[in-house]
């Protein structure tokens, strides 16, 4: 690990730790006047303790995005792998073509629909963000798997009479992991953005929720009165996305170097 990777990991780890451990930390934030400097980080526009809010607000801010990406990979990855490994052309076409149609679907449409129907439901927003990622994930996985499946290694494995499961999971599935890992970084960043933007606009969670993005939105008028009420949640969000971006960049470089060295 070089210093840059350590820094990127640290950037991801801090907000993640706050989000995971935060809710169980026995911290008792006192309420006071709006935007006062009582307590460690002062109070927000509703007079609530900023540090206390930070500790519980990460669960939705990061959890929804990570959940959405995992769900997208579960559905899209399955579709992509099946489409790539099947010998039935109609099955491949039948699964991928509908996704092509959905590709230009503006994310705003999906978001606004969810906001109309299931306002303030974290699960609904997570599923909506996941669904928007499914077409591109399926395409990526299919392309990566096809690349591996059409190579000489699979040919050799087949001639050695290895079972279908060994070939698909043992080789094709594993060689898909590289591109997937690189994609995961940027995709999680985008999902965090999307979830945060929805919440920021007030179309998602309730405007008094402790969520980091909601906090930035709610307290933005008080930025000059009590900077931490806006900056602290914003910094945690940025640290997470920046760290993931840097990690993804490293992974892309590494997999490219690997490809070049095997050529």
């Amino acid at each position, binding site marked *: 690990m070089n210093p840059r990777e350590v820094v990127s990991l640290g950037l991801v780890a801090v907000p993640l730790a706050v989000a995971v451990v935060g809710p169980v930390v026995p911290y008792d934030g006192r309420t006071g006047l709006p935007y006062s400097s009582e307590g460690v980080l002062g109070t927000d526009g509703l007079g609530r303790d900023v540090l206390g809010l930070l500790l519980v607000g990460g669960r939705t801010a990061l959890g929804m995005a990570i959940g959405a990406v995992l769900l997208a990979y579960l559905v899209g990855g399955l579709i992509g792998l099946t489409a790539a490994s099947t010998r039935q052309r109609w099955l491949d076409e039948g699964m991928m073509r509908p996704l092509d149609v959905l590709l230009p679907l503006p994310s705003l449409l999906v978001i606004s629909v969810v906001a*109309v129907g299931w306002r303030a439901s974290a699960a609904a927003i997570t599923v909506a963000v996941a669904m928007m990622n499914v077409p591109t994930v399926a395409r990526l996985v299919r392309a990566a798997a096809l690349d591996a499946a059409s190579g000489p290694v699979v040919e050799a494995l087949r001639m050695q009479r290895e079972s279908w499961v060994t070939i698909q999971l043992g080789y094709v599935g594993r060689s898909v992991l590289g591109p997937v890992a690189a994609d995961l970084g940027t995709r999680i960043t985008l999902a965090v953005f999307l979830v945060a933007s929805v919440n920021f606009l007030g179309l998602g969670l309730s405007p008094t929720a402790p969520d980091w993005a909601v906090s930035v939105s709610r307290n933005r008028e008080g930025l000059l009165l009590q900077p931490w009420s806006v900056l602290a949640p914003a910094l945690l969000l940025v640290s997470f996305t920046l760290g993931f971006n840097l990690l993804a960049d490293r992974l892309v470089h590494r997999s490219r170097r690997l490809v070049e060295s095997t050529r």
Partner: protein
Amino acid sequence: MRSYAAQRAGLAVVQLAVLSVLVFVLTSLLPGDAADLRFTETLTPSQVAALRAELGLDQPPVERFVHWLGNVLTGDLGTSLISGGPVADIVRSSIGATLVLTLATLAIVVPLAVALGIVMGTRENGRVDRAITSVTLALSAIPDFVIAVVLVAVFSLKLGWLPATWIGGSLLSSPALLILPIAVLFGRTVCLLSRQVRAGTVAALNAEYVTQARRLGIPRRQLLLRHVLPNAAVPGVQELARTGDTLLGGVLVVEAIFAIPGFATALVDGVETRDIPTVQGLTLVLAVAALLINLGADLLCNRLVPRSEILR
């Protein structure tokens, strides 16, 4: 070439058909409608039912869809449940500000991103390349609304140099209003685009035909402009079509923060008041715009590098 365009346009028609069904189904099958939301506190249940009948909300969904689609095809987007005026008017009055914001941003972003991408790509892994890459990587990790909140605090509230919110009048007549919104939108788009152009340039420079062209003694300038740039532009154009979606999301945030009465503001208002015809009309226009952008990008890529396959 001709057959590619025809095929691609055919796909766009299918996409349009599916999208129109989706827009309608998703927005109309939702729990709660405008009649519920507006008057539950002041009206009796029977009055709500009468209102619903008047608004046409009591008919079966299929019938409503056929009716809606028929109207849309003749250019009638329906009537707003809240204002009582035609949805087309809402679209017309709100689309201007959004177009100004988007086009002004693109006019700055595209040339800059192409220039940056080529500068980076021709100096692969050099000091300049690494410096620009780091900056763009970091910038693209900051959410739009965080940049917006900080910029407003510094330049409007603290220094008082630039207006923080729209105060009426045309956007074009007061360019100072546009500076902060465009600054917010500019950051991420330029990063995403320039990285794609860089990747395209690197790939093109390493290609065999460029080596061959070099051997033939084609001057560097001509090599870059005539041979590398068209190939390098392909991932950029495709990314631009994809960024369209990101950019629209950004425009939404920017309009909300700076209180600009654009498309996004109208959409959020429509969602908040459950004004379904307005939401349907606005999202349909959005979906059609997204479709056309994708169609245009694919046709342009095919024109630049005629070997790209249809889809995938």
